[in-house]
């Protein structure tokens, strides 16, 4: 029943995340009939850069759905609604179960919504001459989901001491700053996670090192968030 509670708590966020993911498709669909000419051809570097931005956009989805199971008490912005925390904590379940259920549910919802990203790419941009197969799109979806899990667990960590609104804004700001840093500083190009997310579309293989780093970061951030939930006094 904790899953059920989690779903009731996140259903509006899930709908918002879904609309957020669908928004570019709507925009594209509305814009296409007016396009007299086909889109200009891009170089591979330009395409990678555009795809990196595409990855950044969809990385916001897991940030919307993050949560740690026990609401933050208050923030520097405003006092959160916290009363039901005591009811939750009075149930005969461990804090680990509360945390794992909520964080896991948020991630599952995000992964489900992220399936829209490869579908959108397939419908909107990929031409037969691009040589992007369905397995490449699948690899892209897996990579996007795994790499975005690091951002998800960063937002989960933030949710342990910030309310939903503050956590959402702060994590999105952090994500955009990271994107700016990675795309503007040439020295950081090899660790550009956003390019790694879309690399299966260009290299036709999984970026294993980026997947490993992302999983490691997600695990560290998840453990840190759980540690806060476990040791925190309410």
């Amino acid at each position, binding site marked *: 029943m904790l899953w059920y509670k989690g779903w*009731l708590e996140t259903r509006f966020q899930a709908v918002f995340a879904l609309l957020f993911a669908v928004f570019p498709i709507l925009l594209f669909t509305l814009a296409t009939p007016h396009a007299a000419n086909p889109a200009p051809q891009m170089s591979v570097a330009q395409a990678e850069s555009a795809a990196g931005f595409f990855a950044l956009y969809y990385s916001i989805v897991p940030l919307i759905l993050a949560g740690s199971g026990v609401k933050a008490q208050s923030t520097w912005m405003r006092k959160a609604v916290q009363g039901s925390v005591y009811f939750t904590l009075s149930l005969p379940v461990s804090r680990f179960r509360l945390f794992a259920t909520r964080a896991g549910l948020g991630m599952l919802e995000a992964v489900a919504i992220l399936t829209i990203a490869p579908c959108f790419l397939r419908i909107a941009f990929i031409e037969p001459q691009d040589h992007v197969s369905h397995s490449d799109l699948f690899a892209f979806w897996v990579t996007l989901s795994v790499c975005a899990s690091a951002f998800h667990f960063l937002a989960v960590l933030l949710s342990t001491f910030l309310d939903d609104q503050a956590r959402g804004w702060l994590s999105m700001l952090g994500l955009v700053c990271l994107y700016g840093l990675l795309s503007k500083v040439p020295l950081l190009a090899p660790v550009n996670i956003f390019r790694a997310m879309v690399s299966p579309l260009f290299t036709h293989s999984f970026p294993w090192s980026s997947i490993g780093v992302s999983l490691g970061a997600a695990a560290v951030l998840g453990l840190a968030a759980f540690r806060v939930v476990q040791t925190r006094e309410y």
Partner: protein
Amino acid sequence: MSDWVIQARGLQKSFKGQPALTGLNLEVPAGSIFGFLGRNGAGKTTTIRLLMGFLKPDGGDARVFGMPAGDSAAGIEIRRRLGFVTEDKDLYPYMTVEQIIRFTRSFFPTWRVDSEKRYLKLFDLPPSRKISDLSKGMRSKLMLLLGISHGAELLILDEPTEGLDPVAVDDMLRELVSISATGGTTIFFSSHQLEEVEQIADRVCIIDHGAAVVTGSLDDLKTQYQRLRVVLGAELRTPVQWGDGAEHVRQDGRTVDILASRNVEAIINQARSLPGASVERFPVTLKEIFLEHVRSN
């Protein structure tokens, strides 16, 4: 099972250097209705949060059902055996009454559907109503239903009658007595309402500045505490050093009011030995005991 459902020894807790509990000792016997009294900020809610394992003590030890309250593994077992009504009576606002009952039921294999139905009817709780649309009093009743229906051995209630109208307060107090009498459930409740405590509690603890100042059986306290009114033959030039047990002494002209907690007969004899003095004794209410201790503290 141990004789004590709740035991606390030298419990200490501070928040940002401000002491909330300063060595609280507490013993709640099984099957009792225990009133936990104190002013705002005296440490009642902090004590309850420590017992529930929401907070960890800075010093001392708290045990519920003989298990350490702050231990995470023991905490699950403790919470399986108790029902809790929070101070704010906040539940998930997005659920309906029926949904939260179904949700809570899933955690307790011992859930009693007959009890659930009985209290839904008794408390007049509409199953399809959203919790966000319930008054504080209704939420209080709903929390009590959730606590009772899983067959809790201990009910911890933080200001359970707050927000209820007088009729509902009376109904709830009767129900608490009935639960304790029929099921042997221990009830530990904090309150500001001394009359309510006096009406149903068989044991009390008065807490002030984070420590227990009075604790014991209500009947014993009422027998033990006496108010004495001494009318002197003439105003005394030097104040009298009253014997051991004279807790609070107030003199107004020739009249001396004494709250005695023990050795009442010795104090009466001492008063009678004064020239021309007459002594009257009066029973003491819980409110008087509370006010005298809290004011003098």
